[in-house]
């Protein structure tokens, strides 16, 4: 190792760079050899990658963009999906405003400075989504989707601004907004003679499966975790059996069961669509994992917390709900979001049973007559992967943010 002498600190930039190179890359003969070998390898890979990128033909993406986004959703009903998009952006705008307002009230109560989240912080937090939207719009064949997207952005901002007029009662119960939004979304997309969810596909179906999977599996997992700690032996054994059984089988086997066997278990002529059967399989599987994550959180809360609640005269249920659970769930945010991320990626497994999600769409598009046998998976699969990377990266960033925010006054 060479040490930095005072003279070296004052020399010019170029000699400093040379010194850095010598110190870090060429300090010994074997270091030099490694540098040359790996340098050559990296240059080779970069060269090939650059050649590929320059040579890339994105026609397949342009032609199939609708297939990737929505599967075989009927063309004549596409406007319904845009209605869904608008309902979503209005809901997000209102919800964001309600949350911001609640945080403001809390900060005022605590005499703390209000943390004004400007548009810069929105961009810093969600830039991958913005980039993804820009890329998608770059592949559209008409300017209409871009205009409609601008419209969605305008509606979102408008909802945020007009959210100031929301009555106090609604702002306090801000969870009402996503609830009402979900119902409105479903009615807008599938209600009143629209196509049901069995026709949904593409990335749209990955998103819906993820969100529905989380909202259904989380409460179920929570109940299982509580059941596993119950003092009633029947409840405890049922929970343990459920969790250990479902954690012990591959998710694909559950998806296959959902696709081919679940129908026989349901009495009568009533048949659920493939989409619903797969959603049930995903929910059952994920809830077992979420139950174990929550159990870890429950165990992390010190016994003294429960005793303090009990000695105030709180019932066991209120002690759990008001004291143990809030701390337990905060402690497992990283693990929980990790679970959600893996759920998001696992929704691509529905392609096994031919539900046309983004991954399957990316795969089947390369079998179309004009594109087949040209190795175009090298174009479509990275494009599909980009969607998942964006979703996972944003979720992971947001979870770290949430951790920091909820860490206020941590011991």
């Amino acid at each position: 190792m060479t040490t930095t002498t005072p003279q070296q600190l004052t020399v010019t930039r170029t000699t400093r760079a040379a010194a850095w190179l010598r110190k870090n890359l060429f300090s010994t003969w074997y270091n030099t050899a490694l540098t040359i070998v790996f340098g050559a390898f990296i240059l080779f890979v970069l060269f090939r990658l650059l050649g590929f990128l320059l040579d890339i033909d994105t026609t397949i993406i342009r032609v199939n963009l609708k297939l990737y986004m929505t599967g075989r959703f009927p063309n004549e009903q596409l406007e319904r999906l845009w209605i869904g998009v608008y309902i979503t952006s209005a809901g997000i705008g209102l919800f964001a405003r309600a949350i911001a307002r609640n945080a403001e009230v809390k900060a005022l109560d605590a005499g703390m400075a209000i943390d004004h989240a400007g548009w810069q912080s929105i961009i810093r937090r969600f830039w991958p989504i913005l980039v993804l939207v820009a890329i998608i719009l770059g592949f559209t064949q008409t300017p209409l989707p871009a205009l409609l997207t601008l419209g969605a952005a305008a509606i979102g901002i408008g909802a945020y601004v007009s959210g100031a007029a929301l009555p106090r009662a609604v702002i306090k119960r801000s969870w009402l907004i996503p609830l009402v939004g979900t119902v409105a979304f479903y009615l807008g997309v599938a209600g009143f003679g629209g196509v049901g969810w069995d026709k949904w596909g593409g990335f749209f179906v990955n998103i819906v499966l993820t969100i529905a999977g989380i909202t259904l599996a989380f409460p179920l997992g929570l109940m299982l975790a509580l059941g596993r700690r119950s003092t009633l032996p029947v409840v405890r054994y049922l929970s343990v059996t459920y969790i250990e059984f479902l954690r012990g089988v591959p998710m694909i086997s559950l998806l296959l069961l959902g696709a081919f066997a679940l129908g026989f278990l349901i009495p009568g002529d009533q048949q659920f669509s493939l989409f619903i059967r797969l959603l049930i399989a995903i929910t059952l599987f994920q809830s077992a994992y979420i139950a174990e994550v929550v159990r870890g959180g429950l165990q992390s809360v010190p016994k003294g917390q429960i005793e303090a609640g009990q000695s105030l005269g709180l019932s066991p249920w209120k002690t759990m709900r008001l004291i143990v659970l809030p701390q337990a769930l905060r402690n497992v945010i990283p693990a929980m979001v990790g679970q959600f991320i893996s759920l998001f990626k696992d929704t691509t497994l529905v392609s096994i049973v031919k539900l046309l999600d983004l991954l399957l769409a990316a795969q089947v598009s390369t079998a179309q007559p004009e594109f087949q046998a040209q190795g175009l998976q090298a174009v479509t699969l990275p494009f599909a992967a980009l969607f998942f990377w964006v979703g996972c990266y944003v979720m992971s960033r947001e979870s770290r943010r949430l951790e920091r925010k909820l860490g206020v006054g941590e011991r």
Partner: protein
Amino acid sequence: MTNREVFSDATQMAGTGETMIELEGVDKFFGDFQALKSINIRVGKQEVIVVIGPSGSGKSTMIRCINRLEKHDRGRITVNGIDLSDDIKNIQEIRKETGMVFQQFNLFPHLSVIDNITLGPRQVRNLPKKQAEDLAMDLLNRVQIPEQAQKYPGQLSGGQQQRVAIARSLAMNPQVMLFDEPTSALDPEMIKEVLDVMQELATSGMTMIVVTHEMGFAREVADRVVFMADGEIVEVGSPEHFFTNPEEDRTKLFLSQIL
């Protein structure tokens, strides 16, 4: 203050003469280990009892049995006329009557100081929010940290946290306060501020059972001092009698070790 005659029998009380807490023949086992051996004690209304003894002598176990944080195996426990039984309703009634302060404070770290204090009144006594917050501010004034109301427990010193814990218990308007080594986890310079609050509480007529190693507090505030060893009550007496003229050998040995 109440009278301070010598009582060598643990079932004889000081205070107003009415019984607040009564333990009769209480046994407690942890597996094969007997933590409490036939404990008999009566605590009068407004009486202050200080329990001392070597570690592992059953002091904490005894007061934790009184509000059923531990389940006793034999004997009878009565608090303010309510018999402690296995019935959950009954247990909750007793817990409403008894406040408890822990060695490790056990404040709720996810709630602000004022929410820590209002939680019990709002959830158990169904007090409206505004009323509960007024009550909490009164109590924070009483323990002399009203300016900390909106902070979180993690932002307070140990002494401040313990005073919040006392305020939290008082918010339930208990008839009895149990203290389980309330100053043992504190830095020396913070012990006095907590003891001052406890002394003020005693002066105001609260019935208290205090497990502590603070002999100065026992001498000044206690109506009776209870000495426990090996799960038994060895000796009971007024502080003067207890510290100047103990009768039992185990008491003498213990006092010679700590004084």
